[in-house]
């Protein structure tokens, strides 16, 4: 088995003659949290689309724990262990927070095997652990439709986590959140750090400083730089790429 949970090898895609992602190689270790940084249009979302199978790549490979999952169908990649948070919130609004997590914890697809009440002690413990991790213990019995924007994002994160994916992809998880909500999201991600491999696209520099270990900067579909927060912030090439802007947060 590979020591890397997720690897991309010279991954790329062309839309017509335009190379949105142009030979990106990443190695994300097990339990690592990697932040993807880059200006609008740098290809961050497209890179996630390639990894999760939403978009078919035209070159390169994607490896999950050393296993080639390049261009498999989206649901097969999800089942192989790459979980992605949905862009549009897609929680079950009529169910409680707890029920949402329980439904996501699926062992059986069919109706007859689910004709029983209650779940195993282990399953219940895991449900409560995840709800606690995403900070929704007080909302356990709240109908998901009445949650705030931030709470909905955390619930989705919980629904993702209960499926125990090997790698979680998060595209701008704090978009639209208040400062307080952003802080709480950082806390959740920090709690997962070390146990859960994550690839996170984020613009908010304060948030990135809060969570990041290692950052990869994308520019025009290519890897421009890779390093710690301090290294990236003082990187000349990164600064130049942002047209002389003094702060990366300008991106």
């Amino acid at each position: 088995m590979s020591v890397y949970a997720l690897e991309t090898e010279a991954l790329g895609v062309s839309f017509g003659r335009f190379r949105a992602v142009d030979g990106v190689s990443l190695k994300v270790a097990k339990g690592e949290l990697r932040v993807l940084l880059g200006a609008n249009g740098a290809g961050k979302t497209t890179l996630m689309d390639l990894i999760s199978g939403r978009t078919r790549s035209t070159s390169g490979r994607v490896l999950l724990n050393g296993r080639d999952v390049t261009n498999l169908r989206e649901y097969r990649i999800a089942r192989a262990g790459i979980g992605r948070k949905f862009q549009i919130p897609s929680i079950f609004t009529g169910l409680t927070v707890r029920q949402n997590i329980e439904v996501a914890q699926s062992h059986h697809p069919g109706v007859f095997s689910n004709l029983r009440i209650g779940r195993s002690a282990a399953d219940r413990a895991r449900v409560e652990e995840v709800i606690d991790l995403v900070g929704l213990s007080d909302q356990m019995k709240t109908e998901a439709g009445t949650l705030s924007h931030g709470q909905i994002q955390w619930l989705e994160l919980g629904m993702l986590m209960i499926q125990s994916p090997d790698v979680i992809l998060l595209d701008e998880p704090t978009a639209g959140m208040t400062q307080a909500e952003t802080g709480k999201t950082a806390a959740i991600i920090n709690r997962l750090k070390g146990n859960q491999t994550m690839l996170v696209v984020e613009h908010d520099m304060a948030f990135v400083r809060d969570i990041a270990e290692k950052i990869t900067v994308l520019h025009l579909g290519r890897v421009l730089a890779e390093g710690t927060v301090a290294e990236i912030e003082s990187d000349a090439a990164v600064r130049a790429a942002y047209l002389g802007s003094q702060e990366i947060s300008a991106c």
Partner: protein
Amino acid sequence: MTSLLTNYRIWAYLLFFAVLLALPLTGDDFWLNRVAKYLCFGMLGAAIALTWGYAGVLNLGQGLFFGLGAYAMAMPLKLASYTSLQQGSDQPVPDFMLWNAQPGASTDLCCITPGSWLWIPFQSQWFGVAMAIIAPVIVATLLGRLIFGQRISGVFVSIITLALVLLARLLLVDAQPLTNGFNGLTDLGYFNLFGTELDPYAVTTYYVITIALIVVLVLARLLVATRAGTVLQATRDSQTRALYLGYDVPAYQTFFFAVSAAISGLAGMLYVVVAEFASPSFLDLTFSVSMVVWAAVGGRGSILGACIGAILINVLEARASETEALVEAWKAIVGLVFVLVVIWLPQGLGGFAHDMMRRLTGRWRPEALKQEVRQ
């Protein structure tokens, strides 16, 4: 798990069952017979809540399943009636078949009219009972496979079920030699339950129906409390997401659709026992729409609520019909109540009671309030 005894839902069910079981103490056989009919309608309310409230599938043709159950029971009761037994043949023959028979035709059930042989197995009342459940389940399963397998949802399901019940009504009336057409099946005998004849006005009959209703409500409530029930509600909110989580969504929808059909078939069967007739009016569009109104007023999100809604509206209607001035106004009143409920109580009386209980037990707190408290 919260203690069962502190769960007010359990108490609501128990209270309702206690009221039903105590009702014969009033000693009014006439009303008991009427209420027994409305209990059958209560089953229909629960059946609608199961699909509409829990699966988001609005069936506008529930009368089809009720009708199937009703005819499956009416056939053996017709054969058991005095008029059928007095036709001078070895086997009982429904009177209307004799009126329809060609001169000189054999007066046996096998061949008196084309297709009359279909009645032969219905000489057994228990065959009728079985068919009253099995036929709706088969139709619902086939229909469900077709509709849900094609990912048809929302208003299209309603339109298809509506068209289907009207088509079935047409066929039923058209098959006059077999079904007595418009006139339906009347002059029925009594159901014989292990030696006891179920006289529609007897307390025993009332209790048989009450117990059937209690069993239906408890089973339906347990069913939606299973994991499958939760998944079903998830499919109501987002089919795509449920599919993405790996669930066989059409199987869930079809299963609960079939359970709802089985309950409706049972309701139709028991209705015939107390009402002593089956008619194509059971497949009228207005009847199927009425069921939806009962469930909406009672609360489609609550099996008990929808059931009580159906019973309450019918009891009130019967009371109103005793007052001359209200007879004409009644339809308008029900219509008005429906509109008001839809506007102000979208979850019906059941949802309203639920909110009240949460408020009283202090568990109900709007999120907005909570946020304010925190800041």
